[in-house]
């Protein structure tokens, strides 16, 4: 669904590459997580996949970027956004401002494309149901919580029927409740057949929702693997990403020989529960 081959990029008027020789393949219908320290180029990579680089930011881009069968550099931005949607950090900045109700806000992109009124109305209803925001349709987009606004932003994207959705740290400006809301809709999106690429700091939640995780460090996608194995990898510390408290606790337990040497480390609470059960049972016996 996404195929990046040997992609390098430098911003205009700079002489250093933010990304160099990046390769990425994403299968359709999967949720891909990408983790990386601040400044590792996450936003840059998100913009490359979604076509804003090179179409808006300019700069020097080499290698090939193919999304949903379209070579992004060769099509216009208007066409690129029909293949891949982008959700950014700030919920506030994603509200168009041009509309006074959520219902119209959702339809904004479709109006721009000139979609017929009846079809728009149907798609608004369907998308609102998928994301569970039907109750917000008549509210002002500015009168919503951050999490709700982010759901509206996601809905405004997927209503465009883009098969791929890139999310650039969609929860970094949200409270825990809002973060939960956003991660919860990811499963609905995957069930709807949308391919997701999520740039995220929250390792525990990523573990629960991503199928595969890539690590962005030293201007490259330096490692990848199934979410549990990758997110528990001790090298994440070195790359400035850190580890969850469950991984850290289990690693400490392993160091003290409380866990077997080849035990798979947990990332989230869900991973950890069986481990703790087994450990407690052993202790009890």
């Amino acid at each position, binding site marked *: 669904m996404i195929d990046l081959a040997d992609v390098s990029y430098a*911003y*205009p008027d700079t002489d250093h590459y933010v990304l160099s020789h990046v390769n990425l393949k994403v299968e359709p219908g999967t949720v891909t997580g990408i983790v990386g320290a601040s400044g590792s180029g996450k936003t840059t990579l998100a913009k490359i996949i979604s076509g804003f680089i090179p179409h808006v930011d300019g700069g020097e881009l080499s290698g090939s970027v193919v999304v949903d069968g379209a070579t992004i550099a060769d099509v216009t*931005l208007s066409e690129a956004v029909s293949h891949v949607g982008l959700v950014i950090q700030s919920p506030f900045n994603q509200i168009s401002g041009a509309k006074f109700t959520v219902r119209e806000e959702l339809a904004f992109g479709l109006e721009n494309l000139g979609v017929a009124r009846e079809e728009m109305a149907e798609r608004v209803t369907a998308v609102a149901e998928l994301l569970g925001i039907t109750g917000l349709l008549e509210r002002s987009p500015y009168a919503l919580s951050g999490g709700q606004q982010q759901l509206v932003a996601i809905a405004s994207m997927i209503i465009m029927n883009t098969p791929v959705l890139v999310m650039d740290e969609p929860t970094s400006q949200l409270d825990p409740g809002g973060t939960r809301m956003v991660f919860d809709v990811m499963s609905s999106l995957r069930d709807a057949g949308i391919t997701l690429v999520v740039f995220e700091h929250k390792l525990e939640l990523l573990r629960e929702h991503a199928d595969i995780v890539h690590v962005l460090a030293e201007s490259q996608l330096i490692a990848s693997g199934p979410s549990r194995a990758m997110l528990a990898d001790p090298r994440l510390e070195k790359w400035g990403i850190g580890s969850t408290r469950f991984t850290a606790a289990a690693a400490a337990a392993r160091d003290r020989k409380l866990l077997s040497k080849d035990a798979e480390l947990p990332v989230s609470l869900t991973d950890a529960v069986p481990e703790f059960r087994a450990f407690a049972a052993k202790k009890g016996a």
Partner: protein
Amino acid sequence: MSSTATTPADSKKTRNRIFIAVGTIIIVATYLYLVVGQPTDIAASSFSQSGLIAIAGYVIGAILLAVGAIHRLPTATVAMVPVAIALNIVVGQLVSVIGIPVYLDSIGTVLVSALAGPAAGVVTGILTNVIWGLTLSPIALPYAVVQVVIGVMAGYAARLGMFRLFYLAPVAGAVTGFVSAIVSAPISAFVFGGATGGGTGAIVGAFQAMGNSLLASTTLQGLLSDPLDKAIVFTIVVLILAALPSRFRQRFPFMRQYNVFGRKAPVLKDATAAAPTVES
């Protein structure tokens, strides 16, 4: 180049040029007619007609200019205009509350003109007054043309490099203020009879008492405040430009093409601090 530049058909480009040309001609003709063609503003009947001509000529001219200009704006500029208008209005109101004897209600317009050119300034200018009319007072609507003039003048001042040196900006501002005072005077005179506010009204009265005509009095009143106001506004804009990250500035083709800010910026340390990798 942004992909949103829609490369419209040539006919559309020609149409927009005609709008801009006709709009400009109407505005200039309106002013000349009111100043040269109406030597006496004593007869009440012709005076009222002058009010109609002032509003109609200026409003139609400003709308034509804005319609011709808006098609040239890429999305990045369109997204900036609301921020600029909000800046005009919020600062304008804040200043009037604090009681400084200037308006400072065109910082956003001048800033947009400097970043994105006269066309963007025109759109920001006219819509500032439309929104002022929608939110505060309809008195602002007939004056829309004044902000349009400020946008155009600031845009061309930017092209001429007046924002490159911080002591040239107030000069350009004063000239802009001079023109905007002249353009706004017929509105103040023929539509509002000189009474647009307490302080300004008293000054108009004083000039009339000295034997000036109403139009001359509103013109003189404008010349007392506008050049100073715009000189301050242009200076503030230079300071804002210096403080904006250079990467942000470089996003605007107008800024790059005319080297609006110059390479030797007065407050370069701010720019380099914000974007250390950008060569300066």
